[in-house]
């Protein structure tokens, strides 16, 4: 008998769920292992960073995108290409600082938190903090030091999720990349 018929399995979609769930398992494991949320957030950021520095290779390889001219272009690439490619969403880029060195990514929906409901005893947990790490790591590989942090999170009742990115400086080629 063939069950295939009555099962609709969109492998791509499932995969994203696999990712989401695995990430969930990671976060809860960290929550078990660490004393408080702050440490968990740190750890998430660190892991994100490690992923970022590797992911950028894959990214540059698959999206043949050259050097960005300025931070604005970078922002667009991140939002329109990178997020689309890896999370299947396209956050909007807003709230540019007058100096043009700081902007926000607004995520209407964040696949990482699809099913998550935070228990009350995790008030200070930044569940998706991995993303910050990823962005930081990836950009560092293209000689951009940035500061990334969550300023709004639907998980904590805000009606959107907002990631704030601030450009710090260009990294000279010869500098060793990152702390890892």
């Amino acid at each position, binding site marked *: 008998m063939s069950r295939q018929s009555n099962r609709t399995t969109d492998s791509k979609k499932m995969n994203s769920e696999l990712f989401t769930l695995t990430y969930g398992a990671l976060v809860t494991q960290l*929550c*078990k292992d660490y004393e408080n949320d702050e440490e968990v957030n740190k750890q998430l950021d660190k892991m994100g960073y490690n992923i970022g520095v590797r992911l950028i290779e894959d990214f540059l390889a698959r999206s043949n995108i050259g050097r960005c001219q300025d931070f604005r272009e970078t922002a667009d690439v991140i939002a329109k290409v990178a997020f689309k490619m890896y999370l299947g969403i396209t956050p909007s880029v807003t709230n540019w600082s007058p100096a043009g060195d700081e902007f926000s990514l607004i995520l209407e929906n964040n696949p990482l938190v699809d099913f998550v409901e935070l228990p009350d005893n995790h008030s200070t947990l930044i569940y998706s903090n991995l993303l910050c790490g990823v962005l930081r790591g990836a950009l560092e590989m293209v000689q951009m030091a940035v500061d990334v942090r969550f300023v709004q999170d639907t998980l904590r009742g805000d009606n959107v999720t907002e990631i704030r990115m601030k450009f710090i400086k260009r990294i000279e080629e010869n500098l060793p990349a990152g702390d890892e």
Partner: protein
Amino acid sequence: MQLRMAGSLSELPPELCCRPMAFVALTGLDVLYNAVHRAIWDAFCANRRADRVPISFKVLPGDHEYPKCRTKRTSYEWYIPKGILKTGWMNKHLNLVPALVVLFYELDWDDPQWKEKQSECATKVEIVRTSLQGRNTKVAVVLIQKKTPLPPGEDLVASERAQALCNACELSGKSLFVLPHTDHLVGYIIRLENAFYEHAQTYYYTEIRRVKSHKEFLNKTTHQLLFVRHQFKTGFFSELKQDSQNALKYYKTAYSLIHELRAHETNILEIKTIAGFINYKICRLCFQHNTPLDAIAQFRKHTDLCKKKIGNAELAFEHTAWMSKQFQSFGELFDEAIKLGLTAIQTQNPGFYYQQAACYSQDRKHLAQQLCQPGMIYPSPDPLDPQTGGLDFYGQRPWRQGHQSIDPPNTEKEKTGILALQIKEREVPHSELIIALLSNAVAQFKKYKCPRMKSHLMVQMGEEYYHAKDYTKALKLLDYVMCDYRTERWWGLLTAILTTALRCAYLMASVKDYIIYCMELLGRASTLKEEQKSRIEKNLNKVIMNEVPDPEPQCDQSSLNAARSLWSDCMALAGLNELTIEVQDYIPFIQCKARFCSPSFHLDQPIQLQVFLRTNCPHSVSFNKLTVSLSNQEYNQWCVMESSGQETMNLLPGKTKCYNFTFVAKTEDVGKKIEMTGVEVMLGSDHSRCVYLGWRGAGGDAASTHEALQASRSSRRCGRNVEMQQELEWDSLTLQQSTMIISRVPKISVHLNHQPPALNNEIYCIQLTVQSQEEGVAKDVKLTTGLKPGQDANLGQTTHVILDDAKVCDDTAPALLPDILLGDLKSGEKLEKCVYVRCVSTGPRVFLFHVAYSIETTVEGRQIICKCHKDETVTVETLVPFEVSVKFLSTKFEPLDQVAVDIPFLLMTDILSSSPWPLLLVSSSLQLATMVSNTPKLQSQLQEVVLQSDECASECFCLRCPPLTNTNTTVATGQYLISWKRKSSSTDSPLIQTTVTLPHVILESVPLYIHADLPSFGRVRESLPVRYHIENRTTLVQDVEMTVEPSDAFMFSGLKQVRLRILPGSEQQMLYNYYPLMAGYQTLPQLNISLPRCPTTSAHTLRRFLPQCIFVKPQGRRLDDASIAAA
């Protein structure tokens, strides 16, 4: 009669429930005194099985008065019916008004007084006829005759007289029967009754027609009641006619008609009652027709239509009683049908109807409690006693019969009537009814595998018993279901049941039950609110303090006082103030988990055991004693903890307490398991009441395993929030119910010193050093050493072990030396032994060195003697020390495949060492069998030779094989003996003799032995004398032809060709003078020899022993030297 009417308006009358059968009256039978008649009667009544026609017979006197038939009214003008169905009607047609009256009369055709008898019979018929005035009832006559009749037509007298009789009695021929009273009575009877049945059917047929005929006179406005009545009657008659199909049809129309009636306060009861009747009939018939779904559908419709028809609110209980009855009787019909072969299913079985019936009965009870105030006086005259004697119509109020108009009846009468009914209702044993229905339902649900439904109903039964104040029964049921809900983890339900149970326990002052229920209601499974819990806890403490607890809320006041006195009694009761409760299978308010701190302890370690206790109830719990019992009771004394003096041990809510016990194992328990058999916590004290809570094994309870499983998967953080952390820790605490006692760790070192591999046959020395690190003296140290048991069996034969002091290590030595006493070892003392092993075969072996001793130590201040032992094993490979190879060579060092008799040859031996260690070859020797040495004395050429590994030692012996008497071609050479030892081994260590048997050789005899004497070298241009010896080895004279071939390396002088004769055994010599011409290795001129006498032997074989070439030195001149150099 009276009671049935009043007590149970909801009851279904028997005349409704029975199966209607044609009613036939038999007259003229004297069943008392007339044996013949009696026999006939019996034949009618006896075994009326399904195969007999459905008739109910009655014997009536000939002059019986049948119910008068009212004069038929010609018109229904002005006629207002007083009710739907008369109470008497059904009974009348079942038992009073026959369909057929049969007159029995004894008369034979040839009776002498025929005339008289005929007229007498006619008058009897007449009497019956008159009393049935106006009815359609038929009359038949049966003549009881002594003679067997002739076949019809033959007896002319008979037929003629029969005709006459019919005329006399105005009977049709069909109604006259003859019953010959002979031996085949039953046969005749059956034929008769079939005939009667036909008559009956026609009768009921006409009845139906009659009733129908009224229809045209009726009008919709005033006669709705009659429509119903008539439909019912036709239905009923059809049943009597056994025409169930039509009966069903009529009943159905009747049913729909009755719901068209305008229902109001005064007639609603009547409508419901009749509706109930008709519904009953319909359902019954549907089941009978095997259409259960129709039955169910009809019943649903019925209940849906009626459940809102409550009628007088003050008598609401009546309605529920009625509803209950409806469900019950349907359940019974259903059940009956199943007994007759219908198959029911889980979701559609009688149980549901019994359950619903019970439900309505419960409502009835509650309504009764609300509506029927106690202490009212029963009114007189009794309004429920209809002066008219009996009730005319079903479902009417006795005090206002036939009152059909909408306008309200006499309010005063109404009041008293209602009051009377209410008072009567109070006398009804509601609980009994409910319980009976419930237990019916339980039986059904059991049958249709609905365990949960069953438990639910049992709970209801329990509660009902509680209301009926039968607490023992109540608890029996509740206890039974409790564990179901516990194992299925339905805490809400469990708590509900426990609460009821607790009330029972309180009301019957059953201390143990009371405590048990309290414990669980305080436990973590209980869903009670905090304040309820703290109330219960207070009560529990009171009971433990041997005081009377406060009553449970919602206990009915009436029984409280009784309870109080019961309690004070049992508190006063001295003695049985001690009770033990096995709490494991509950979810008690104290949790217990115990564990040994390790799955095994060494004998000299104190055994540590922890008991964790925890409570979830609102206030702290104090207890006075904690004991753990173990599989070996001797240890129990160490596992007791008692509160010292005043202050008790106590548990704070939500906090885990850990109690530690330690004790020392007994020496004899080494290798044994110690198991916890139980843990006990004692609440209260001797001077109040002692309650022992007992856990089997290492604790845990009905819920703990599941909790542990959940905890193991939980993602909750350890260490974040203290309260939660405790929780988690508790749940993930694992029990360790048993521990192993293992022997003390030895404090000695066993070192082995040896040089592997062992060499085959050598006496291999393993040096054993035992040193004690004990503080005390290691007493009677024993060594067991040798081949480790359990290896390849034949290793046992090929391994021999001795200890140093023993001398020889021959094949008698065993493979394993057990329990060699080595005395005592002081602290730090060292002991050395050499174990010698001789391995006769090669390959790996495991050797065991087992050193055992006993020592005194103190654990926890207790002196104990521990046996310790240390095992060392070592695997030793055994190799052959060297390979010996032997070859035979000619004196010219050419390899020989055979040796010639009496001609010297060389034996060369090579000893190739394969030992990693240098070997000392002390000596070697030959033991010759047939051979003899060619040299005066053989002595070893390799004495004291040291062979490094892979080195080879060779020696060479010159031998000769003397001529043999026997003529076998191969001969044994002999043996080669090598005595050797390791270079490293001490001088006094014994030598090892290795004997190599030398190979046999093939022997040949040669006819002629030719050999030559010549100098070891020649010199160019100097003469070189060569003397050839030719020996004749044959027994014949031999002619020998010799020629010397010319060679350009030599010139020579002497006979170039010669022919000579040699006598047997003698020798000839030929001298030649060779003159070398060139230097270097030169082939000598070839000597050709032939023996004409024995042509087989070729020149070649004869030439074998001659040298072929010789080294020629150049001349000793300078320029010649140069020339040589040049050359």
